[in-house]
């Protein structure tokens, strides 16, 4: 049972890390154009907003799907 708990939390950690890889990939393409000596303020804000807005979009889509389903039934 302890092992089960441990494996489950490792599983969650893995999914978290996978999401971070996916978001970095996506937001890198959206926010980083040229390679400079440091990520500048604008790029940093863009990266943070990119993650936040992507998650907002997810929530918005799921919410809207649920409403559609409620209206149908």
């Amino acid at each position, binding site marked *: 049972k302890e092992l089960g708990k441990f494996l489950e939390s490792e599983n969650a950690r893995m999914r978290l890390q996978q999401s971070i890889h996916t978001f970095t990939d996506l937001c890198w393409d959206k926010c980083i154009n040229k390679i400079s000596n440091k990520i500048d303020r604008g790029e940093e804000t863009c990266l943070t907003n990119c993650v936040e*807005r992507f998650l907002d*979009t997810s929530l*918005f889509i799921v919410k809207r799907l649920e409403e559609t389903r409620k209206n149908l039934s």
Partner: protein
Amino acid sequence: QVRNELALANAQELINKINEKCFSKCITKPGNKLESSEQTCVAKCMDRYMEAWNIVSRAYISRVQRESNSQGESL
């Protein structure tokens, strides 16, 4: 229960694709919040994507059926 998991996986995949396509189409410059114009765009884009999914389903299933009929004939 297997069928439920399948339906869930299918819905999840559809949501992921909508998210990916509509985020890239509607949120070109991610700002401090999801603007109402962006929400409208995502809502429309989502409806269009599901329409497209239905059209593609019909086309694919009818093709699969035609192919399996004509294979039956040629035997």
